[in-house]
């Protein structure tokens, strides 16, 4: 079979054989179970009270706080401890309240029932706390509206759809609607990191296994090395995405059912962007892992040879954590142009809207060119390494002995 037909056959074999293997089914089931446990268990057993302290400046705050407590505990079963408890501390002026906030004595400060001051809006916990206060402030206003006569339903809807409290964050940086994008980027980053380490290893050991059980000589007698390597990456990549998507769907459903925390609204564009960089990142590492796997004959040696790639993934992950905090900093900018770190960093900077278009495009071009060049180089190393048995084959030796 010629060209991509053979590649597809190889991919199909990877998919059917692996999907049928106990190891794949077990890891899939385990991952989903762990994710479910992480989401559901705290909801089942974490019946404790979440306590917070709010500073109050001026009038009109007490009603918001008491309504927030009522709303937060609305679904509690009788007899259980309350879900939330809020303590109020009075301050004379805004300045002293902010000092208390900065020293961590209070979690937020309400001013005149119209403003809420927090440390920052980033982070999941912070946002749900603000949302709670917003909802409660809205409820207070609705109660006031209903108390007056002759008001239109439209007025109530307007109140419901607005955020009555103005949010002031002491530390800047994150724009409010950037929060969900950051969450998506961070999540994507974590997935790419895990996928590179987990599924990259599958490709590595898969190649080494074919070499150690010598089946590769039968394969190479009929099809070309790039078809084997390409098919392997396509097949394992497909399984990887199926496993990851399955886990994500289970997680989202579980979150919606339990309401463990509010999912931020997610834009299609940022998800697509993430997917694009996920595929790019996975491809770069997959090709490298495949070439590395062809250099060793025994699976025991495979882990040693994977070290450089695993290290690169770790570096990429930490660099992008840095970029999350300082998306315009030199580390973030430099790593944008390095193919091994770009897939981690670019989605983060895109999410934070901290990457100029030219840098984004440059990174894209660099990565695509890298994939093409790597496929050629790795394909040749792969071809040269596959029929050399015993011990570890040097990269240069494999390159030279490749039959092209």
């Amino acid at each position, binding site marked *: *079979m*010629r060209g991509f*037909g*053979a590649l597809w*056959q*190889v991919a199909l*074999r990877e998919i*059917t*054989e692996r999907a049928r*293997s106990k190891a794949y089914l077990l890891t899939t089931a385990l991952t989903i179970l762990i994710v479910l446990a992480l989401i559901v268990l705290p909801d089942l057993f974490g019946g404790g009270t979440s306590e917070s302290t709010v500073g109050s400046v001026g009038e009109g705050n007490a009603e918001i706080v008491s309504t927030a407590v009522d709303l937060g505990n609305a679904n509690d079963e009788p007899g259980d401890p309350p879900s939330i408890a809020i303590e109020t501390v009075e301050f004379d002026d805004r300045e002293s309240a902010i000092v208390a906030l900065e020293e961590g004595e209070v979690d937020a400060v309400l001013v005149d029932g119209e403003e809420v001051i927090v440390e920052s809006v980033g982070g999941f916990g912070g946002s749900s706390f603000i949302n709670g206060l917003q909802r409660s402030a809205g409820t207070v206003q609705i109660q006031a509206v209903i108390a007056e006569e002759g008001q239109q339903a439209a007025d109530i809807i307007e109140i419901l759809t607005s955020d009555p409290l103005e949010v002031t964050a002491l530390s800047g940086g994150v724009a409010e609607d950037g929060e969900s994008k950051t969450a998506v980027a961070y999540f994507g980053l974590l997935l790419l990191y895990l996928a590179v380490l987990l599924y990259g290893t599958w490709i590595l050991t898969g190649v080494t296994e*074919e070499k150690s*059980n*010598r*089946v*590769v*000589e*039968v*394969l*190479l*007698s*009929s*099809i*070309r090395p790039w078809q084997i390597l390409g098919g392997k990456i396509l097949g394992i990549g497909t399984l990887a995405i199926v496993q990851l998507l399955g886990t994500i769907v289970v997680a989202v459903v579980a979150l919606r059912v339990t309401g463990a925390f509010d999912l931020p609204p997610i834009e299609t564009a940022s998800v697509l962007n993430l997917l694009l960089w996920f595929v790019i990142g996975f491809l770069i590492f997959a090709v490298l892992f495949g070439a590395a796997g062809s250099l060793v004959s025994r699976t025991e040696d495979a882990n040693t040879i994977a070290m450089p790639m695993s290290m690169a993934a770790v570096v990429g992950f930490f660099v992008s954590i840095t970029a999350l905090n300082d998306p315009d900093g030199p580390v973030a900018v430099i790593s944008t142009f390095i193919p091994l770190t770009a897939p981690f960093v670019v989605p983060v900077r895109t999410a934070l809207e901290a990457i100029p278009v030219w840098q984004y495009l440059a990174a894209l071009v660099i990565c695509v060119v890298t994939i093409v060049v790597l496929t050629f180089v790795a394909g040749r190393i792969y071809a040269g390494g596959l*029929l050399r048995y015993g011990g570890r084959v040097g990269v240069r030796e494999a390159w030279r*002995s490749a*039959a*092209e």
Partner: protein
Amino acid sequence: MLSVQDLHKSFGDIHALDGCSFELARGHMLGFLGPNGAGKTTAMRIVFRLINPDSGTVTWDGEPVDPDDLLRFGYMPEQRGLYPKMRAGDQLAYLGRLHGMSKSEAREAAEMWLDRFGLGERIGDPVESLSHGNQQRVQLAAALVHDPDLLVLDEPFSGLDPIAVETMSDVLREQAAAGKAVMFSSHQLDLVEDLCEDVAIINAGQIVVSGKVEELKDAAPIRHLELEVEGDPTVLLDSLDGVHSTMTNGSRLTAIIDAETDVRGFIARAQDAGKLRHFAYTTPSLSDLFRQAVR
């Protein structure tokens, strides 16, 4: 027609092939012989473009072998290789697909070959659960599943019991009779003599002997002499010219002698010396030719 011309290949300081040439026509079966390390596997790998020769050419029907030709070739490598956890039937069907068969063709061929080797009931079993001999049968089926025009088998008989050897011999004969070009390497020279019309003997990277087995035997400068007498047979040999090698086993003596040596006088003397129980003077066996060629 497979034509291998003047192949050279070095691995570092080792000259694996040093001007290796041979030909194999459709409908013929070639025994590819040589001591360990003579270059048999290297030559076979070059035919399948697994290794690049330093120089020399391999052609199929007059054209250099290209990737499309490879799909019409079947190969059984010396190092057996199958996916241990994959089912026997799936494995064969997969290899059939890789060689360009449709899904149903590949399925049918896989079933047919497994039936042929008496493994029809094991079609759904993982290869690793089969015995060594049965794995070897599956490996041969893997080389045959796509009905190739050229069949190249590296030591197909090693490690097989006599029954399996018979099945495999039958299949190879059939393939050659059906017009396929078949070549295999082996150290079991009696078997090669039984099966093959043509042989090529490789030593130190060069083909040292090649041609029809019968013609080679007739043309050989040596003869095979066997006799059994009462008493010590070795003293008789002192009177014989051109003895290359001898081997005694009790009262039975085997010798390789010059083809030109006149044995008539020797027979007379042997009869005088004592009772001659057994005497044979024949063209050399393939084993004799082989030993002579690679000495």
